């Protein structure tokens, strides 16, 4: 896609920011400690990254989904985990509030989120409800002006650092499957909320992930987001936005792997010449570049369709997420193969990229879930 001048300038901003701020020392530290880097968080605030596509009236920057995917791609190209810092307040954290929140809720929660002052996490997954979100067992029982929440959410990105959590809970216990689920925005400081341990993850280390445990948490009635019992359908729309972010993250990872592979193939000499001169290697590079380019087009196109509110946007997003995430794992594997033994040690960037890539076909809907929804769209 030929980008407009405005989007080119935004891309310059994102690339410059990532290449300047995401130093290898910081990336090593994130990987080693698995803890959140608040310095980067504050620098991101200054460039407006936290509120990229949030409307100006809610403290955001008022840009569009294409700018958002450019941002996630460019940040991921240098650090797939630091891209998540800017991703959450633009997608999963803000999505449900923007979509169904009242004016009061938007002002109360979105403004500090878009300014990076507060962090909102999105909590739908449970130990027994992953791909099958309908299996939610967390309950919210109405008690006068309050709801009493009980249950456990797991693998929640950002939970250990979040100020608020968007929690999905069963409000109609009689309803089957994904029916009767409602959505709440819950203050993480409320009595009865506790955190599980931070997960010790394979990749995207440096953005904490953990459980949220709720024991008789009294949540005020005005924390209900959207309509009672209608939370699941709303969540699905939010996940569309999040999936676009994963697609962009995958494109950025794929691009980084490609660049690392090219660099290594030009430097490394075997049999008296650089390995890039062997067709076995150069054809791998050709395949990788083609796949990255294809995934990028799918992703940009999906973003533009979403900006146009085109009815085909969700399907385009599922395809972009499915293809780009699978692509970046294929490309990471080839890039590591080109590195040979050097790719298997931590001295080279590809080792971390390979681990970071792995989550993309899993979170925000596995590839198999994407196949389900894409095919359901074709066959309805």
């Amino acid at each position: 896609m030929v980008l407009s001048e405005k989007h080119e300038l935004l891309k310059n901003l994102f690339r410059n920011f990532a290449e300047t701020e995401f130093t290898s020392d910081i990336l090593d530290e994130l990987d080693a400690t698995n803890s959140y880097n608040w310095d980067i968080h504050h620098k991101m605030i200054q460039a407006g990254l936290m509120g990229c596509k949030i409307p100006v009236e809610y403290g955001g920057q008022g840009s569009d989904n294409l700018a958002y995917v450019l941002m996630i791609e460019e940040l991921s190209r240098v650090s797939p985990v630091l891209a998540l810092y800017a991703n959450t307040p633009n997608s999963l954290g803000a999505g449900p509030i923007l979509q169904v929140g009242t004016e009061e809720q938007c002002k109360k929660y979105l403004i500090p989120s878009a300014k990076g002052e507060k962090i909102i996490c999105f909590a739908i997954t449970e130990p027994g409800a992953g791909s099958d979100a309908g299996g939610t067992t967390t309950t919210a029982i109405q008690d006068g002006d309050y709801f009493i929440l009980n249950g456990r959410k797991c693998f929640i990105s950002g939970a250990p650092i979040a100020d608020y959590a968007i929690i999905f809970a069963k409000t109609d216990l009689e309803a089957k499957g994904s029916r009767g689920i409602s959505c709440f925005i819950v203050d993480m400081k409320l009595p009865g909320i506790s955190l599980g341990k931070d997960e010790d993850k394979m990749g995207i280390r440096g953005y904490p992930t953990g459980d949220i445990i709720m024991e008789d948490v009294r949540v005020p009635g005005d924390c209900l987001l959207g309509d009672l019992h209608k939370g699941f359908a709303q969540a699905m729309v939010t996940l569309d936005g999040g999936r676009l972010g994963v697609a962009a993250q995958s494109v950025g990872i794929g691009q980084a792997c490609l660049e690392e592979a090219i660099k290594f193939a030009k430097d490394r000499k075997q049999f008296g010449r650089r390995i890039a001169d062997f067709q076995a290697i150069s054809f791998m590079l050709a395949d990788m570049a083609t796949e990255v380019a294809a995934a990028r087009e799918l992703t940009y196109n999906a973003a533009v369709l979403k900006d146009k509110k085109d009815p085909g946007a969700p399907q385009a997003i599922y395809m972009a997420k499915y293809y780009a995430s699978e692509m970046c794992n294929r490309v990471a594997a080839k890039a590591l193969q080109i590195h040979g033994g050097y790719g298997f040690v931590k001295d080279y960037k590809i080792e971390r990229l390979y681990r970071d890539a792995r989550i993309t076909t899993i979170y925000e809907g596995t590839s198999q879930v994407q196949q389900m929804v894409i095919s359901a769209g074709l066959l309805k």
Partner: protein
Amino acid sequence: MRIIVCAKQVPNTNEVRIDPVKGTLIRDGVPSILNPDDANALEAALTVKDSFPGTTVSVISMGPPQAMFMLRECLAMGADDTYLLSSRAFGGADTCATSTTIAAGIRKFGKFDIIFGGRQAIDGDTAQVGPQIAMRLGIPVITYVQKVRELTEDYVIVERQLEDGYEVIKAKTPCMLTCVKELNTPRYMTIKGVEDAYKAEITVWDEKDVALLPESCGLMASPTQVQKSFTPPPKGKGEMLTGTIPEMTDALVSKLTAKHVL
């Protein structure tokens, strides 16, 4: 205060290669950027704006219409308004004609307090345009500004970088300051800044707008003539001495003696 920043769009010379036959820059496919020292100049201006509310920062440039992209970047960083001197008549200008044109543009603004410019542009590397603008406007100029110690509406006190130190200079406003990269770290654009930059108007002036005759600008008013440009041949690989420090010192001394350097 009214602050003016002079900025130039330049090819990113990190990515430029030299045509081995013609000796000229190969600009094809090379991205154009805001000249790095000019980004420091803009940052200096924006810092003034941060501490003096009500300050206006105007950026002026001369160049082809493509230079608007660079001016949008200046807007996205926080400049209030931007002006582009663009006309066929300005083409082929050397530093003499360029400073005439930019000074004419600045005169059109009327009253101003400080002009910030970069030390030099990374394409021409002359460092002449800033001082020439100041000369044409009849105001003091301080080049190589590495630190602003004090800045008021009436005067500035700055450190001027020297090879082996710096000197402290005070100048009355209005004045011109040309900035080096040690002065500051330019801020990032913001996303909203980019959005707003594309809603803003960039004022374009030609020679008539700034009251210049065509023969006073561009190639016709440029005394500089480039006879030849070439890439100096590489010097060849250096020799690395090894051993202990006394061994290396002895080897170095004997080599320098053999070459009659010592």
